[in-house]
């Protein structure tokens, strides 16, 4: 009986199919992504966080009330009355609108301040790590000195002295977090520096700033991403700390911190004013923490 022959001659369709499957390997990023997707808490957190971000971006435009719309007739309404889904506060402002606006403000502060600390930290750490020697010593001494300062006190000092300008908040909080980023980046840079592809780049005549920018920084991505997802909740907490003390975001603008501290004052009359913002903040922070932990487990499973 005639058997169909699979021809393995070069150029035949079967060979091409076999070669395609054989060559398509799994990179380290693929491995990491698989491990991450298997972490249910992390995946759930990513979905929840995506929903929260969507709510923060589009929510304030979709609510029937504006976040600063004062309504003297609708004061202290319980949730689901008078058209206010989450109730209203002491000035009759809709809590849902303020909550979504607050989420937007807090997430923005988290993102911008983290970017500030990212830029400073990565630059500082990469330069110190790559150049080494006396420059490294000096730069890391400065980091050590600044690290032992109680930063929150200086942020408070800045706010008291110069007023609670939102740009100042971004810069001050960002300045708190860059130190650890610098340390992590320096450690990674030092281990990357010795690899062959850097030596090849040097041999090809690439200047040192170009090597840092084009080769070292992109390879730092793993630990930096992990640290970024763990920095954002710290920033959001720091901002809410400041708002609680009256030094952060000022009314009528809302942030999760101002909403929680306002809700804490009126806790007995209107517990919903405390509960909804607190739950939102707790959920947001937990999401970032789970994602950060998941990333850490995925990218460096030895750490577990």
């Amino acid at each position, binding site marked *: 009986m005639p058997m169909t022959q699979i021809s393995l001659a070069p150029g035949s369709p079967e060979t091409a199919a076999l070669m395609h499957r054989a060559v398509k390997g799994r990179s380290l990023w693929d491995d990491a992504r698989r491990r991450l997707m298997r972490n249910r808490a992390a995946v759930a957190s990513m979905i929840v966080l995506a929903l929260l971000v969507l709510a923060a971006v589009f929510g304030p435009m979709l609510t029937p009330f504006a976040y600063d719309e004062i309504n003297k007739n609708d004061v202290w309404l319980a949730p689901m009355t008078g058209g206010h889904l989450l109730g209203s506060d002491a000035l009759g402002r809709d809590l849902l609108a303020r909550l979504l606006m607050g989420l937007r403000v807090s997430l923005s502060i988290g993102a911008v301040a983290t970017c500030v600390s990212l830029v400073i930290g990565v630059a500082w750490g990469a330069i110190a790590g790559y150049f080494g020697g006396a420059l490294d010593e000096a730069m890391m001494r400065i980091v*050590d000195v600044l690290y*032992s300062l*109680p930063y929150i006190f*200086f942020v*408070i000092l800045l706010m008291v002295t110069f007023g609670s300008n939102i740009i100042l908040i971004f810069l001050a909080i960002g300045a708190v977090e860059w130190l650890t980023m610098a340390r992590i980046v320096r450690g990674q840079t030092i281990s990357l520096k010795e690899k062959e592809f850097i030596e090849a780049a040097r041999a090809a005549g690439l200047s040192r700033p170009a090597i840092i920018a084009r080769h070292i920084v992109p390879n730092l991505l793993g630990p930096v991403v992990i640290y970024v997802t763990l920095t954002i909740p710290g920033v959001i907490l720091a901002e809410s*700390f400041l708002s609680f*003390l009256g030094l952060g975001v000022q009314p009528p603008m809302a942030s999760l911190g101002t909403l929680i501290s306002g809700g804490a004052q009126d806790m007995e009359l209107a517990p919903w004013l*405390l509960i909804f913002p607190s739950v939102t903040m*707790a959920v947001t*922070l937990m999401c970032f923490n789970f994602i950060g932990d998941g990333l850490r487990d995925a990218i460096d499973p030895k750490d577990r």
Partner: protein
Amino acid sequence: MLRFLGRRLAVAIPTLFIVVTAAFFMMRAAPGSPFDTDRKLPPEILKNVEAKFGFDKPLVVQYGDYLAGVLHGDFGPSLKYRDKSVLEILKENYPVSLTLGLSAFTVAIVLGVSLGVIAALRQNGPADYATMGMAIVGICIPSFVTAPLLVLVFGSILGWLPVAGWDGGAPANLVMPVAVLALPQIAIISRLTRAGMIEVLRSNYVRTARAKGLSETSIVLNHALRAAILPLVSYLGPAFAGLITGSLIVEQIFNLPGLGKFFVVSALQRDYTVVMGLVICFATLILVLNLLADLLQAALDPRVRLS
């Protein structure tokens, strides 16, 4: 060991210097004069007042005077409480913060280590997940959320504990503030202890101890715990800093007359000298505690000493 101490001091002393300098210059940079009152002072009197406080001297001289003053414990007069100096205010209020801080620290260590050990021994069991779940909650819910909630439940609804106030340090008044202050630290310490414990329990010498027939309790308490708490000791410095920062919120919410509350009140009242004095005070405290924590770690772990 002495070289280690020397190296640490070499970092700590410039840090303190930077703190004092930054505090001084920020005070001078603050908008508005410390002598603004509702009624504008006539210029001659204003000049006399400024001369009394040394404001007419060149800035560098003022800075030198401030430094000298600080070294003698003189942080200047309070701007709001005209009859008290900053130092007097510090002395009046620090016992409260000290009691609160020490109690919270003890509770955090005892509970945190115990929970961490239990979670490690029953790894991946229900006790482990429960403890670690509580730990995540403790880290993610800020103290100014747990405090009002606890006050609502235990103070208003159940009426078991007083809602606020110090009352000379009565135990009932301490319970909630200490609980709120210690909770985030318990969370972090239990996670650290659990991780350390898990790693130690897998090591060879623990296996040998088991093979020798030692009881599990003896192994855990006498052998494993000592090695497992090393990562914890290196967290002690940040733990102190966390307790001190946390005390700002806790003292404010529970209306405890401590340094933290005073810091907040003075910051809001723009009483610059008090705020500066407190910043220097807190910074020194944190530096000293960090130094002690580093020394402890060096004493326990020779690898740190020799690195």
